[in-house]
C-alpha cells in the first residue's frame, strides 16, 4: 500500500479493473439528476440563454438583409446617384433622395442647435446648482417629457405650434431676422422650422438626462480639488466636471442627434411633406423618415416601393453608425475611464 494514500491501488496508474466504476450509481445521485442537477440541465439552460442572446444579432441581420433584398430594384436602377439627385417623381419612376437628406440634416442640426444649450444648462443646474428638494421633481418632469409618445407631440404641434408659428412667431422672425434671407417665402406654419422646434423639444430630455448621468459619474475628488484651489462655483463645474466629461457629453449629443435623425411621427405631421429643397426655413420639406411614413402606403409601383425601402436602409445604416459612435463615447466616460485634469 502506498504510504501517502492508504486506499490507493498498488500499481499507479491503476489498471481499469482495479478502479471502482460507477456501475451502481448511488440513489442520491440519481435523485438529484432527475431534479436537474446534472450536466445536461445546466448546459441546455445555458444554450437556451445563448440562443436568446444571439437573437439580438439575428434581429440586426434580418433587418439589414430584408431591407437590402427589397431595395434591390432601386439599387440596381439608380445606384449611388440615388443620394445625390434631387428628383422625386413617382409618375415617371424617377427617384432621387437628396431633398430628404437635406431635410433630415437641416431639421436635426437646427434641433441640436436649439436643444443642446438648453439641455446642458438643465443638466448643469440639476447636478450642481439645484437645491436638493427640487432635484427629484424637476428630474421627474424631464423624464416625463421623454416618455410622451411622439404622436402626442405631433398632435400638440399641429394644433398649437403651427398656429403659433403662423401668427406671433413667424412675422416676428421675419421682422427681426428677415435680413438673413432665411425667412423668405410664405409662412404656412408647417415647415422646416416648426419640425426643428418640435424635434428640439423631443431630444432635449435625452441629452439632458445622459449629460446628468455623465456629470454625476465624475468623482467628487475632482470637484473638491478644484474648489480647494480657490475656484468659484462655475469654474469648479467647468474645470472639474465639464472638462472631464467632454467626451461623454459629445456622446450624449450624438445620441440626441441619432434620435432626431430617426424621429418620424411628430416630424411627419408638421414638416409639410414637400420633396424639395427650399431656401427658407418656412418652406415645407421632407425628411428621410417622414417620406417613408407618408408615402409608403401609397407606393403603387415596385420601383417606388423599393426606392422608399432603400431610403429606409440608408436611415438604418446612418443611425447605426451615429449611435455606435455615440455609445462608444458615452461608454468611455461612464465605464471608469480615469478622469484627466489638464
Amino acid at each position, binding site marked *: 500500500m502506498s504510504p501517502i494514500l492508504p486506499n490507493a491501488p498498488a500499481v499507479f496508474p491503476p489498471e481499469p479493473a482495479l478502479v471502482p466504476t460507477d456501475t451502481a450509481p448511488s440513489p442520491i445521485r440519481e435523485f*438529484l439528476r432527475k431534479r*436537474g*442537477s446534472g450536466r445536461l440541465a*445546466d448546459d441546455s*439552460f*445555458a444554450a437556451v*440563454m*445563448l440562443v*436568446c*442572446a444571439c*437573437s*439580438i*444579432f439575428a*434581429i440586426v441581420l434580418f*433587418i439589414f438583409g*430584408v*431591407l437590402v*433584398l*427589397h431595395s434591390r430594384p432601386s439599387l440596381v436602377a439608380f445606384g449611388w446617384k440615388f443620394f445625390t439627385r434631387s428628383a422625386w417623381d413617382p409618375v415617371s419612376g424617377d427617384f432621387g433622395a437628396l431633398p430628404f437628406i437635406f431635410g433630415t440634416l437641416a431639421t436635426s442640426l437646427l434641433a441640436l442647435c436649439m436643444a443642446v444649450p*438648453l439641455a*446642458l*444648462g*438643465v443638466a*448643469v*443646474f*440639476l447636478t450642481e446648482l439645484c437645491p436638493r428638494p427640487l432635484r427629484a421633481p424637476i428630474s421627474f*418632469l*424631464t423624464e416625463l417629457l421623454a*416618455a*410622451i*409618445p*411622439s*404622436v*402626442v407631440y*405631433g*398632435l*400638440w404641434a399641429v*394644433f*398649437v405650434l403651427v398656429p403659433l408659428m403662423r401668427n406671433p412667431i413667424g412675422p416676428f422672425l421675419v421682422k427681426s431676422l428677415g435680413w438673413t434671407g432665411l425667412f423668405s417665402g410664405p409662412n404656412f406654419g408647417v415647415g422646416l422650422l416648426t419640425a426643428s422646434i418640435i424635434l428640439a*423639444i423631443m431630444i432635449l430630455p435625452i441629452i439632458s438626462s445622459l449629460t446628468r448621468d455623465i456629470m454625476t459619474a465624475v468623482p467628487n475628488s475632482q470637484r473638491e480639488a478644484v474648489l480647494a484651489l480657490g475656484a*468659484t462655483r*462655475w469654474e469648479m463645474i467647468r474645470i472639474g466636471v465639464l472638462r472631464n466629461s467632454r467626451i461623454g457629453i459629445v456622446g450624449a449629443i450624438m*445620441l440626441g442627434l441619432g434620435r432626431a*435623425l*430617426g*424621429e*418620424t*411621427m411628430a416630424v411627419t*405631421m408638421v414638416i409639410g411633406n414637400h420633396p424639395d429643397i427650399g431656401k427658407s426655413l418656412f418652406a415645407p420639406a421632407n425628411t428621410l*423618415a417622414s417620406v417613408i*411614413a407618408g408615402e409608403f*402606403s401609397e407606393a403603387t409601383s415596385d420601383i417606388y416601393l423599393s426606392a*422608399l*425601402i432603400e431610403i429606409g436602409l440608408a*436611415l*438604418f445604416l446612418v*443611425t*447605426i453608425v451615429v*449611435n455606435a459612435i455615440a*455609445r462608444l463615447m458615452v461608454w468611455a466616460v461612464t465605464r471608469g475611464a480615469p478622469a484627466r485634469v489638464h
Partner: protein
Amino acid sequence: MDFQTRSMRLNKIRRNATNYFVSSLSVLATIAVVIPLIAILFYLVYKGASSLNLAFFTKPPAPVGEPGGGMANAIVGSGIILMLASLMGIPIGIAAGVYLAEFGRGKPFATAVRFTADVLNGVPSIVMGISIYSLIVVRQKHFSALAGGVALAIMMIPTITRTTEEMLATVPHAIREAALGLGVPKWRTVVSVSLRTASPGIITGCMLAFARVAGETAPLLFTAFGNQFWSLKLTEPIAALPLQIYVYAISPYDEWHRLAWAGSLVLIAMIMVSVTLVRIFANRGVLKGGS
C-alpha cells in the same frame, strides 16, 4: 493700492460675475424647459379631459361627420398587439439579459451583444416597421395584428435585455456563491436566486419597455395598419390607439380631432402611471448592503 492688488481685485470681481452670470443662465435654461413642458402637459390634459366621455371607451368610431363614437376598438386593439409583443419580447429579452449577466461575464461575445443591443435601441421605429412589412406582410399578402406584435416585440427586446442585465448585476455575488456552495445547480441558482432577487427591477424594466412601445405609431403604420371596425382576429388589420390618434389628427374633421385629443390623454395617463410606478419601485427589492 498697488497694481497687483488692484488687478487681483478686478480678476476676482470678473470671476464672481462670470459665476453669477452662468449660474443664472442655467437657471433660466431650466425655467425655459420646465415651464413650456408644464404648459404642454396641462394643455394636453385640458383638451383631452374636455373631449373624454364614456362613449370613448365603449364605442367604435362613428361614420365621418356623425357625433358620438369612440375609440374602443383602438384601445382593445392596442391591448392585443401589446400583449402579443410582450409574450414574444419579454421572455427573449429576459433570457438574453440573463445570458449577459450570468453566463457571459467577461466574454467578448457578451460585450458585442451588449453593444449591439444599445445600438439597436436607437434604430428608428419606422425602419423596424418597414422591415417587418417586407418580412411578414408581403409574404402573407395582408396586414395583421401578428405583424404589428412582432414589430413591437423586436423593439422591446434590446431594452429589456439591457435593463435585465443591469438589474442582475446588482445581485450580490455572495448570494449566488452561497446557493452554488449548497449544491444548487447553476441553472437553478439563476432562476430561483438571481432572478428572484432582481425581479422587482426586472419587472420595472419590462414596464418601461412596455410603456415605450405602447406609444409607438411608426412600426404599426404598415404592419397592423389600423381598422375602423371591431376586429379581434390576429390575422387581420387591427386598430391601435397611437395609430388612430395619428390618422385622426391629420384628418379635417373636428369630431375626429376631439377623439384624437381624448386618445392622447388616455395614452399619456397610461404612460405616466407606468413611469411613476417605475420610480416608486425602482429601488425596492434589490438586496441592500450586500457584499
